[in-house]
């Protein structure tokens, strides 16, 4: 079912010491990968290997392909399934969060073909053939993305629930050339709500990455 060999799912050694949690991380990643081969999520059916490139299907199931964090997947889902629910409920990629499900909070921000979008306002099938990057795909193996490092350094989160969306949006904000000033960042990050009020720290983190000249 996967075309690519899954990346080594060994958890990164980050010097933190939540060993139990790290085991959970491992388990989660394994599940995400396993779901594509063993299908422990009962509603994820593998498509016929020779299925057409364009999505096809009736009201119950539609077959299509997606690349998620570098892995090409052939999927068959209910056409009503949003990209967000596909990630969370079927692929085990729960890092992308559901905050409102109506495009009003930004917690579900992912990259589609490198652009930030809201996974809750798109049917998965509409993304046929596209490359999806989620928070789980932001780090390069053990090495955190500079934006992730900066969020930790500047404490750009509290509860952590809006954080994946903030991060995906922050990376885009920089790519879009909208991180040239504090005011710019504040405006172009406004689609990501944070109820804990981590905004000032998030802005500092983005400015830090921007001025650090790190690649985003």
């Amino acid at each position, binding site marked *: 079912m996967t075309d690519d060999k899954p990346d080594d799912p060994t958890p990164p050694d980050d010097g*933190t*010491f939540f060993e139990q949690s790290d085991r959970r991380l491992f388990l989660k990643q394994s599940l995400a990968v396993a779901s594509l081969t063993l299908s422990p999520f*009962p509603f994820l059916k593998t498509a016929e290997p020779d299925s057409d490139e364009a999505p096809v299907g009736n009201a119950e199931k539609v077959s299509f392909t997606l690349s998620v964090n570098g892995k090409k997947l052939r999927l068959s889902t209910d056409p009503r399934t949003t990209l967000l629910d596909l990630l969370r409920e079927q692929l085990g990629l729960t890092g992308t*969060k559901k905050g409102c499900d109506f495009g009003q909070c930004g917690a579900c921000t992912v990259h589609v073909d490198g652009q930030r979008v809201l996974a809750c306002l798109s049917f998965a099938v509409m993304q046929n053939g596209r490359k999806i990057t989620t928070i789980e795909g932001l780090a390069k193996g053990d090495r955190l993305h500079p934006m992730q490092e900066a*969020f930790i350094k500047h404490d750009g989160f509290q509860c952590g*629930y809006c954080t*994946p969306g903030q991060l995906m949006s922050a990376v885009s904000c920089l790519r879009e050339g909208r991180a040239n000033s504090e005011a710019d960042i504040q405006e172009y990050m406004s689609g990501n709500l944070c109820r804990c009020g981590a*905004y000032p720290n998030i802005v500092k983190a983005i400015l830090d990455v921007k001025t650090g000249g790190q690649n985003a």
Partner: protein
Amino acid sequence: MANAHLPPAEPEPSLNRVDGRLKVTGAATYSAEYPFDNLAHAVLITSTIAKGRITNINAKPAEAAPGVLAVISHRNTPGVPAYPPLKQPAERAPIGTAFRVFYDELIYFSGQPVAVVVAQTLEQAQQAASLVEIDYQTETHQTDFVANRSKAAIAMNVQRNKTSPFQDYDRGDPDAMPSAEVKLEATYTIPTQHHQPLEPHAIIAVWEADDKLTVYDKNQGVKSAQGNLAQAFKLPRDNVKVNAQFIGGAFGSGIRVWPHTVAAVLAAKQVKRPVKLVLGRELMFTSVGYRPFTEQKLAIGATKTGILTAIMHEGIGQTSAYEEHLERTILATRAMYACLNVSTRYRLLNLDVNTPTWMRGPGDATGMFALESALDELAFALQLDPLELRLRNHADADPERNLPWSAKSLKECYRMGSEQFGWKNRKPEPQSMQTDGMLVGYGMASSLYGFHRHPSKAKAMMQADGSVVVQSATMDIGPGTGTAMTQIAARMLGVSPKKIRFDLGDSSLPDAPGQNGSATIPSVGSAVHDACKALKNKLLILGASMPGSILSSAWPDEIEIKNGRIYPNAESRSSVSYADILKYHKLPQVEMTEESKSGPERDQYSMYSFGCHFVEVHVSPVTGEVRVKRVVTCADVGKIINDKTARSQSIGGVVGGIGMALMEESVMDHRYGRYVTSDFASYHIPVHADIPQIEVFFVDQPDVHVNPIGAKGLGEIAIVGVAAAVANAVFHATGKRVRELPITVDKLV
């Protein structure tokens, strides 16, 4: 208690969050995110009327829909064992009854859960939920606070309890008000406001056996949730497991076990599968409480020189028709300023709405909006600087309880805050400062919050390899509990934080209170302190008992421990490690569990956190739009455990206060008794562009009387007073006094 002792914070006063990596990689697992093979999805159906009864439920079309496993309502619920037998005909629950899920056909509020649909997939459950047909017979409802104000009364709870703090309160001379040189009276209103954490409330309920229940539930107290569920389902407490390791914010919404949790547990029982139920954002407005609509009347008497001679503070809060929710609204006024003559009154108004609950700074954020606005009005009337007015009325001891403060550095907060802010640049006259066509306003307000410490247990375990595990059934809804506890353990044991793991959010861990009332660090931090201290002592004794041990002749107070190595004194070059001690004694681990709680000091001192906020706003004279440009916030909360996370918490409180001041309002159409603001597009919380950089200052001196770590709570005090500081700044900018929050464009043009 007089020897508050926590070794110095160095070298890591600002340790990064121990769970930071999990949170930035998406690996932190929240309640709805645990995988199960045969997980079923539940969707709640809620009433569309505010009062009346269900006359018919047609579930057939839904039951016939693809993938549907069950449609459960009061007609076919497996039942909550603890509920009393049904009466025929159904009778309305007396006030004081927690809401009963799927109990009878009666409707108490719009948004009440009336049925739950369970299906194989989320899409199927959502579709089927829209197919359930429910008929209602409506009765006249009352949801409008203003129209029903005259029905407000002393809470029955208070009538029964003569020692309730909400009894009518009068101190001093009743003639002080009428004879005051200067009098001021005003009414302040705050609308209903909702917590709206970014993570919606969610639960996965799993019946492991007929009498064994496990829930992954978003809440702020695994132990109280465990107790509540065990009681409701008549299970031995230990047969209920509650897991909540990561909580995506709560701010009070997770203090109780709410109906949707019970609904999911019932659904899982019915379909004999794990069931996941996630509240849609719209249901977050009617399912998990809110800060209640509250009206307050403040009357202040003072001398012409600005000495307070009398304060009368009356508050009316709304509650549901079935429960009483009381909060501290009028209580801060009794303790905040040195005023001899103070009266308070507190009333409740029962309406056909769901029950409110505590929301960050409960009662005090509401009450201090009124008191600190009124002080600002008085300062203006007296042509006195608002800060000077507060200094003139500073309470050097608690005027309510006639006790000394355990510690109070409010004056230091005022000094730091005003200096950092540049308060001296404030021109006294409203509308006197402008920049770039915008009206500029400076405002300030004081803050306080009572000290809470609850009995807590912690277990500290030294492992054979010298690493440490500390456990307590406490929570982290965002402040960074695990990080702070790790630091306390690190300092007590002399072990690097990297070698410490702190476990929380699991009901099988040692008893701890829920995370609320700014009580976690004062309570659980003390328990971690005590457990680690006990563990260290035990290990030192074990170490000293090793033959030829360098510790056998050491003086206990000279011993130094660094990176898990114990030195008899600071000069010593030889040392023994914790791991050596365990190895010698052939012990796989050494553990100590301690309980920590308040003692007689509670009767000897009055204990509060104090603080103040300084705010600069810009107001457009053309559109009436208000933008907060600068905030300086100062707090005296005793010892700061982690400077970085504490700052974040303070900033977060200010952001919440800005939302409260400028935009947050849950608006109901009273013709239907239903909110018209039920999403993030209509219930506005601040976005990035609303929030400037916020400067935070702490006094950071241990309060030696409160607990062994000298730390008081920060979560609530961070928001208390902020709305008043903003409103006061808006008055200074515009000359318009807005007494009804939020301060929106329509109130300023």
